[in-house]
């Protein structure tokens, strides 16, 4: 770096001082920073909700198959299929709501 040019250390110190100034002057408030964090967490929770629901429904289907194996009596198998269908419908509904929002 050429002599007389701002050094990384000098810029680092200036940036730290400027960050303190932004906070002490109220240009960036604590409430603003909290809101930034909260909004990301909210976005994360919403984005993760659908995969989590899909995983739960997959677990439910696996569990249902363990409880009522394929060789079970036809009425029970129909019941399992119905349960599976309901889970899929709920998942599809959640997915369509997610897309609308």
């Amino acid at each position: 770096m050429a002599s007389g040019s701002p050094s990384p250390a000098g810029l680092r110190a200036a940036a730290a001082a400027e960050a303190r100034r932004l906070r002490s002057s109220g240009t960036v408030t604590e409430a603003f920073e909290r809101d930034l964090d909260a909004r990301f967490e909210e976005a994360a929770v919403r984005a993760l909700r659908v995969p989590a629901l899909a995983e739960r429904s997959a677990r439910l289907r696996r569990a249902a198959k363990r409880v009522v194996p394929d060789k079970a009596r036809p009425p029970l198998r129909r019941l399992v299929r119905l349960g599976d269908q309901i889970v899929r419908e709920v998942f599809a509904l959640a997915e369509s709501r997610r897309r609308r929002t």
Partner: protein
Amino acid sequence: MTSPERIDQVIPAIVEHDGVSNHTFAAQRLLVEMGFESEIFARIVGPGCAGRVRPIDELPDLGEKRQWLLYQSSIGSPAAEVFARHSGRKLIDYHNITPAELVERWIPPLGEEARLGRRQLAELAPLVVAGFADSAYNATELGHAGVARTRVVPVLVETANVEAAPDPEVLARLVAAKGGGGSDWLFVGQLAPHKAQHDVVKALACYRAAYDPAVRLHLVGREMGSAYRDALQRYVASLGLAAAVDLPGSVPAAVLAAYYAAADVFVCCSDHEGFCAPVVEAMHRRVPVVANDVAALPETVGEGGLLLDGKDPVLVAAAVHEVLTTPGAREALVEAGQSQAARYSLEAARAAFRDGIREELAVAG
């Protein structure tokens, strides 16, 4: 032991526009130039790589005297088991494995693969004769895993990413946007939780509040799992920044060159980087770098950029402001970045790789 006929590479997955994959192709070219037969064997072959890479179940086993293997390690994979069982003399090239806790909330299977990768690294350590690592940070991890001899061989950076001419249409669009005022921030890397693009967005929001509501941010890179991308898009929208934040996905080299050409600053807030080739690309492309002091970033950035103690969004915003407004700062960082990037030039990395292979040949006698 005489020199082997072949030095083949084994890699869990190979895809286009990926640093480790680019490195593997470049290493293959180098091994062929050195007079070896060399092929790449992958468990997963991505689009665009077919024909250049063979499936791992076609890996021949010619014995230790005739064949060496170089394993490209960055994630857990059954490919490691194939490598472990092989009778060839073994080397490992370590690119680091993202800590599972940084990704498992978003992509649970990736968290499991990362944990598997760490376990496999410990299992492979006694089987390999030596390890290459693309940073001293990674070499230290290799040593802790139990690899006896390690050496730093920088990433063989994709030449096209530092030499391609900017796509004229994309560049014209980006330059036209500057007409409305505002600077352009850039980060290049997979849209992934450990790259923490959301923290760059936080810093951008602070910068807009403090200095310039016209600032723009370009987050270039393919997504690693839809949930994080979805969260990032929701976050950007909830902050009212949808018009200011651009998520173009994975782009060809010429388009990437246009983004570098239009960028005023490269901002990195990653929680983990084993090397971070885009930092070097930015330095090559004369874009000043602002990054946080974590993992291998202090080593890659060195004195060639502005390395911050943490990534407090207000500090990052203030740092970018200092770089863009302090007389001479931008030019000084660009100049320093050019010197630092020269350390990671393709020629320097190729020389380090060649030296590493030659040393192993000498050790093998």
